[in-house]
Structure formats: C-alpha cells, structure tokens
C-alpha cells in the first residue's frame, strides 16, 4: 500500500499527537489530558457555571476540541478518528469540569456516541454529578424513522455549542441550558454533499469511491456514503439540492429568521464555500427567509473530504443574543 498523503507519524498516534500540538499552540486557553484524550478549558472547573462537555470521533476539527474555551465548551473528549470516545474519557471530562452546577453532555446522534455518553452519564450520576444530555440529530439526509438509527448530528452541533455555551456563561442553570439546547436542535436542520472521499489514517485508503464525474448527496461526516451518487453539477444546482430539503423539513416561512451556516468538509477551498454561500443566500432571499447571522468556513469537517453542508437554524431572540455573545476558543473567537 502506498503511504498516505498525510502529515503524521505513526497513524496510531495521530490523535494524541494532535492534542499535544493543540496544547502547545494554545497554552493560555487550553489544557489537555493526554491519558484521557481530553481538551479542557485552562480555568476549568468554573465554579457555579453549568459545564458543557462534548466529544466524538476525531477528524472533524475544529469540532469539538477547537470549541473549548470561554463562551463555548468546558471540555471535549477526543475519540479515535471517526470513532466515538469511550465512557472513561467522558466521565473524566465530566468530573474535571463540573463546577457544582451540573454538566450538559452534547452528543451527536450516532449509535456509538449515544451509547458511550449514556454509559458515562450513568457512571457520573453514581458519582453524584448532575448530568443532562442533549442529542443533536439535524441531518435531513437520513430519515427519522423506526427503520434507522435516526437522523445524524451534524452542523447544528456547532451552532448549539456556541449558543448554549453563551447561555451557560450568562449563568443559566442546567435545566435552562438543556431546554435551550433542545430548542436549538429542534429548530436546526442540515444537508451535506461530498465531492471526494477521505482517508482514515488507520485504514490507509479512501472510505468510499466516487468516480471522477460523481458527487455523493446526503453525505455524513464520517465518510459514510450518502443518499445517492449523482453526476457533478454546478454550485447553484448543488445549493438547491441542499437548501430545499432543509427549508421544507423546517417548514420555514417568509419573514422567518435563520442563522445560515455553510460548512466546508475540509478539502474544499474557502473560495468555493463563499460561492456556495452566495447561492444559498439567493435561495433564502427567494424564499423570503431572512438571514439574521451567518457562518462560512470549515467548522465540522471530515478530514480532507471535499464538499460542504448547509445548516439553517430558525432563531429566536435568545438564540441571536447568545450567538452574538463573546466567545474565545481556537475555532470561534469574537467579542471582548
């Protein structure tokens, strides 16, 4: 097998080495626990504040470790690439950041993530820590029916971590944070597309095959194949394929307000993401939907996969206020 086109040493060490690099790059903001593969706020636990813990497989950076910091997450648990973290890690994170006001687990809806966070929450409860979990499931590419594991958690997770992180920073309690988190998840939907596959370091070759003239519609963030393989199309057609199902699933009406989020899968240049945002904005204008805020860039990625996803979140006043609140993480940073 030819070596991979990747900047790493032993593929088995990639997650730990990346965490060590993160710690070195952000000494004032972050602390890492290399044994448990955790990224922690340097000042955790913050006494009296609800703590947010998320995590999942690695390979989606900056999600989640890059969103640890004031105004967003208190800790992120890094699993192996595309593999959920294990209960020990999640329990260690939960214990490390609990400031006495309880801990909110933000879990993307994948069987593995859900079961591992569940086991950890059981253990944390036994240890006397108040834990609430919210599961994100915003991917309209997957039918939410009895015949699937339910919709996947994708782009909404980023928006939720920002918004609920701000609410926790404001001093809202665990129940209020959990309720806001569920509202964000209910009001947000996403759909993604891949132009290329990605290669998991430990596997050493692309997860799926796409012909030179094909794209995969309804892709997940783990290189799982999507809803259908189709011929490549111009950005404006792709935008329509992504925006329409999201608009209709959310039943967005004229005059409603959204946060519009065009997310890169990792291997698509920003230049193209802005082209896509232009198309998405045009479609929203046509539908009479107002963009209250927007986000364009690589925030929840699939290693070096080329492609993008579109997330729309129907917002209320509280969500916008929390979105605008200061945030100070490696991946999202604004305000004083």
């Amino acid at each position, binding site marked *: 097998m030819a070596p991979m086109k990747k900047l790493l040493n032993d593929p088995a060490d990639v997650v730990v080495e990346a965490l060590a690099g993160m710690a070195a790059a952000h000494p004032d903001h972050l602390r890492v626990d290399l044994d448990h593969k955790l990224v922690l706020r340097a000042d955790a636990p913050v006494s009296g504040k609800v703590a947010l813990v998320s995590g999942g497989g690695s390979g989606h950076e900056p999600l989640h470790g890059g969103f640890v910091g004031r105004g967003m997450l208190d800790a992120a648990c890094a699993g192996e690439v595309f593999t959920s973290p*294990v209960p020990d890690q999640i329990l260690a994170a939960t214990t490390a950041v609990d400031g006495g006001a309880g801990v909110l687990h933000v879990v993307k809806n994948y069987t593995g993530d859900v*079961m591992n966070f569940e086991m950890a929450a059981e253990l944390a409860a036994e240890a006397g820590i108040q834990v609430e979990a919210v599961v994100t499931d915003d991917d309209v590419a997957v039918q939410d029916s009895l015949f699937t594991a339910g919709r996947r958690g994708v782009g909404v997770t980023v928006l939720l971590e920002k918004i609920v992180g701000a609410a926790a920073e404001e001093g809202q309690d665990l129940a209020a944070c959990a309720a806001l988190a569920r509202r964000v998840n209910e009001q947000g939907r996403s759909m993604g597309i891949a132009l290329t596959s990605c290669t998991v370091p430990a596997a050493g070759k692309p997860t799926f095959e796409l012909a030179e003239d094909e794209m995969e519609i309804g892709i997940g963030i783990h290189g799982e194949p999507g809803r259908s393989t189709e011929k490549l199309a111009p950005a404006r057609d792709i935008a329509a394929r992504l925006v329409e199902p999201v608009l209709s699933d959310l039943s967005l009406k004229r005059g409603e307000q959204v946060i519009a989020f065009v997310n890169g899968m990792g291997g698509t240049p920003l230049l193209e993401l802005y082209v896509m945002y232009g198309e998405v904005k045009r479609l929203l204008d046509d539908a009479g939907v107002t963009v209250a805020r927007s986000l364009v860039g690589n925030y929840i990625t699939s290693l070096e996969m080329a492609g993008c996803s579109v997330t729309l979140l129907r917002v209320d006043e509280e969500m916008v206020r929390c979105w605008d609140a200061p945030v100070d993480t490696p991946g999202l940073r604004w305000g004083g």
Partner: protein
Amino acid sequence: MADLNAFQSWISACSASIDDRAEDLTELDRAIGDADHGSNMKRGMSACAQLAEQEDFSSIDAYLKKVGMTLVSTVGGASGPLYGTFFLRLAGPLAASEDVGPREFGQALRAGVEGIVARGKAEAGDKTMYDALAPALEAFDEASGSGAGLGESLQAAAQAAAEGRDATEPMVARKGRASYLGERSAGHQDPGATSATVLIEAAAQTLT
C-alpha cells in the same frame, strides 16, 4: 469444562483471530459504515489479551468483568459498549464457578446477548451483531439441551453464528451507521455480525 485458563485462552484466541481479520472487518465497515470496525476491535481485543499477563485474576467472573470493562474503555464506537456489555453480563451467571459446563455457559451467553439487546435495542433482522449471536445462542441451547458438552455445543453455536452472519448480507440495516444507507445497505455482510462470529468460533476452539 472450562476453567480460568481456558477463558484466558479464549480471549487470546479472539485477539489472534481479530488481528488476522482486522482488515476484512474494516473493509466490510467501509462498505456500509465508517471503515473502523477492524481497528476498533483489534485495539480492544489486544488490550484484553494482555490482561492475563498484567494481573492475577482470582475467578472467571472477575476476569470476564475486566475484559468487558477493557472493551468499553478501548473500543469506542457502537461495538465498544455492546461487546463490553456482553462480557460484563457474561460474568454474572459464572460468579460462583471455577469450572464452567454447558448449562452455566448457556445461562451466561443468554445474559450477554440480552445485555447487547438492552444497550442497542436491536431486533432480529436489523443487520447487526445480534443476527449472529441470537441464532448462536439458540443453537447452543439446543445442543446442550440434548446432552452435548461445552465444546460440542459451542461448535453448534459457531456454525449457527456463521449462518446468521451470512444471512445479514441481503438485509437492509435498521440499526447503527449502516441504517443511514437504507436500501443501499443490502448486499453487504454486517461487520459486527462477522466479528461476533469470530468470537464464538474462538470460544468453540478454546472452551471445551
């Protein structure tokens, strides 16, 4: 009758077989999942295989509990909690045993498989590891019920697991990552059913 040594051989054999099959398992997971089942299981099973060297275990059930916890802590993904729960529950009915015969093992196997169902809510035909384990359990009970010893009953179980595994190929997945594919998941053998069969086959070779 199988003693602590035999159970430790079982786990060693699991690790060796999973090592051999890791690439195949990842390959199966590439088709309908995320291409990590082989590396997940390899990481977990080789950690388990080292337990016997690292620690002196006083009983079979203490050993199997540690195997379960080790799998929970090292595998991750969907299969980590599921196989972890399997071994944790397997330990229960063996709490008092130094030498395990077919009747006790049958109770343990039932507890383990029920643990997987409790955690993952899979039903027959969902295209999961349960589709190998459920027929294995049934075949085991049938064989041991008609007087077969532990080894012989496990051979029947392994045979049934392999058939169950093969039967997952045409199924449309309704649980786990493969379910996202809908109809496109048909035509591929389930990776978890494949690794489950490996574990039962290893049992048939070592627990006699």
